[in-house]
């Protein structure tokens, strides 16, 4: 399996991803008119013999794709095994990247201050073990919102490719700015929202005092049962907004249930939506 980016955002270093630019690989890409200064070696002499006009023969350029996996490890991800699901998906995406000779780095961001946990960019099968070890070592807990996590990650990241955001995306702020930063950094945004069953289908009723797991703030709710339909409307609207924001930046977005198995997620959900190719 391999990741299926929408655009060819690659690094200049050689890799196994074919860049959009003409390259030195053996795979033919296209013809173009000869321009002064072009390397005479790439002129197609057979065509020149037939047409008496020089055409440059272009080849695909195989460049390295940087796969940045950002795991939101804040406290909100500890509910309903969301963090576990994020780690599993990160392992899957990381394995895909490494096995396809791509550059993979992982960031697990939890605290607002300090340096995030990160796995330095690496490529090749020898990085599989450090990757898995890093993912196993991620412990949740923290109060960083997802937009700050993205910005924190971007402070340490260099390179173009795919940014896979594994988060619940539950934040009070607008994500537009963070996504713009990702886009402008040459990263294709893949937002994968992981929600728990208690967030997708909460069973609540009566008067309640909700406590935010990260900030500790409270919110009094009266007749929660009668607000459920409104809640679902808001959740769907928010997911559509995120989807729109990602799409408008040539990215992807999908939402999964943390209770779904990893097989269902990979081979069904993500495969059908073209995230991965088999």
């Amino acid at each position: 399996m391999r990741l299926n980016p929408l655009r060819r955002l690659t690094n200049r270093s050689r890799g196994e991803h074919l860049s959009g630019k003409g390259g030195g690989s053996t795979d033919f890409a296209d013809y173009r008119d000869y321009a002064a200064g072009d390397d005479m070696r790439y002129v197609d002499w057979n065509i020149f013999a037939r047409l008496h006009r020089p055409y440059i023969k272009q080849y695909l350029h195989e460049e390295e794709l940087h796969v940045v996996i950002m795991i939101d490890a804040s406290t909100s991800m500890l509910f309903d095994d969301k963090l576990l699901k994020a780690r599993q998906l990160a392992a899957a995406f990381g394995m895909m990247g490494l096995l396809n000779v791509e550059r993979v780095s992982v960031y697990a961001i939890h605290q607002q201050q300090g340096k995030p946990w990160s796995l330095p960019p690496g490529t090749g099968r020898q990085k599989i073990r450090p990757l898995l070890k890093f993912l196993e070592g991620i412990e949740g807990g923290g109060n960083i919102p997802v937009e700050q996590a993205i910005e924190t990650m971007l402070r340490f990241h260099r390179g173009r490719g795919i940014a896979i955001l594994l988060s619940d995306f539950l934040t009070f702020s607008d994500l537009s700015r963070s996504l713009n930063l990702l886009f402008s950094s040459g990263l294709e945004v893949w937002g994968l929202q992981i929600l728990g069953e208690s967030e997708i289908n909460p069973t609540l009723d009566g008067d309640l005092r909700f406590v935010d797991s990260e900030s500790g703030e409270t919110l009094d709710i009266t007749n929660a049962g009668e607000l459920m339909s409104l809640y679902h409307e808001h959740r769907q609207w928010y997911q559509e907004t995120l989807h729109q924001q990602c799409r408008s930046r040539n990215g992807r977005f999908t939402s999964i249930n943390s209770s779904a198995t990893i097989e269902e997620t990979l081979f069904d959900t993500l495969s059908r939506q073209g995230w991965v190719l088999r």
Partner: protein
Amino acid sequence: MSWPDFRFPLGGWFFLSLIPLVILYFLKLKRPRLEIPSLALWQSVVNDQRVNSPFQKFRRNLLLLLQIILICLVILALMQPFISAGPETDEYIPVLIDCSASMSAKLPGSDQTRLEVAKERVQAMIDNLRGQGKISLFTFSSGGRRLTEFTDDQQLLNRAMDEVVPTHRASKLDEVLRMAEAYARTAAVQRVIVLTDGNLQDRVDFELPFKLEVQRVDQGGNNIGITEMTARRSGVDNSSAWDIFVRVAGSGDETVFGEITLTQNGNTVGKESVGASQEDSERLVFSVDSAESSLIQATLEVDGFDSLDIDNSVWLSLPKTRPLMVRVDAKMYSWQHALSVQPDLDIDAAETPAATEYDLIISNNEELNGIHAPIMIYNGVVPEDLADLISIADLTAEDEPVQVVDWANTAPLLRHVRLRDVQIGQKASFAEGADAQLLEERGYEVLIHAATGPLLLQRRRGLETAFYFLFHTDRSTLPYRLAFPILVRNAIESALQQAGLAEVAAVPTGVLPPINLEADREYRIQGPNDVVDTMKSNSTGALNGVQADFVGKYDILDGSEVAVSIGTGLLSPLETSLTSVEQLQFAELSVATDETKVIDSDRHLWWAFAMLAFVFLLIEWWYFQRMRGATT
């Protein structure tokens, strides 16, 4: 529309309890805490315009609202709201409630009696009582009884109303009006309200010092009952046969039929159909043989509706039959001669009395040497206690013959007796300053008057009646006149009557007649309706003043032995007739009885508020349980 008023407006202070409720609610309101990953979505939900709608705000504190409503309703119920039926009054009103037998009559088509209807009206007056107004409750039947002072204490009045029960007595308004008049002197009474069925004597011997407002309850239905029951010896000589006369009267225009059953000591001795209406009463005669004393009961079973039950049973005590025992002094030949021709007498004219108890004693001497009789005739005797007031002297040659100028021909002894032409050889004279008034003060009544003084005196003492001929009959022409045997017969009749040997009548409810028993002995009286009383006979052996308020049999018990059984009956034609008088005639004016006047009662609303409070309590409980179930 009239706004509700409150009987207990001070209860409004309890509304202050809402303040701590609201404070406590907001202080103690504890919602279940629920930790969630993020408030982000919920915050947006809460911020939604629909969530912030006024209705949702209202629902946020629904529990508090329910509690406030609940408390308000309870306090309003506590304040006893009512819609007034009339203005406040500051009157002092004696209310006289008729509890006579006819008030027990059931209204046609209803299980309510007249008394219950009257009580409802009085209850309405009590409920309406406010302002400075005060009520004093009286009940009356043959007598009156005051139940309460002038009071506006509704609890006290309601308790007194529980004591208002129908009696088995005839109604008489005079006595209770006198009581009310006496009591009215303690307060400014403008009017007295009488609640009655109008079954009263239309003439009332009373001068009204206040306005009388007579409110009449509805007419009862058809009724027939026994209004009279007497027995008379039917045979001659020593026969033990009695004729029992039972009169049955009715109240309706149409004749109502029934059946009279006569029992003697519990055994049926006669049964006969009877019919009576308001116009026609029927008198039945039964023959009963009773050598020994026995208790006769007449019971009327009515075909169809009978408004009043208590006039359907009457008891009558028949005495043991025997000749009348007469003691007459040995030398009173004229009396002995007159007595000798009378039937069924046992005359003792010996020098020494053969017995100590007689039915009639005729003597020349006030000293009787230990013999007793209920009726005594003294001949030529001035009572010892009147010796200072009256003197007897023989006539002299100069004196005019003494003649009778007047006599009480209604007295039992002098019925049908003419004394006009009797001449008397002795004259009785009042001492100086003495007159008939003084004699009356000493318990003597003058039955025969001469020009100079009394000739015959009557003294009643307990069950004994003594007649004093102040002149000796042998010193007059009386024994030679037709009046003498009539007088002797009257004496025998009186003695028979007193001994109950000739004629007895059923005893009406009220007070039992004096009963001859052993002297100075305590007896227990056991009557109907669980009446139990203990009374002591006096020194002459008479048991007086035994209350018999209810129709039924009264056993006078000496220990566990029944000494005497006496039964009573209503025996009131007026009560049985259930008629209502339209006007009461008082000494100076007439008072109309008003049937239409119905007192409106205040409409109490406390129960409605209490019910609403209960409903809100249930709603609150349900809501609270729903909240608890949801959060758990």
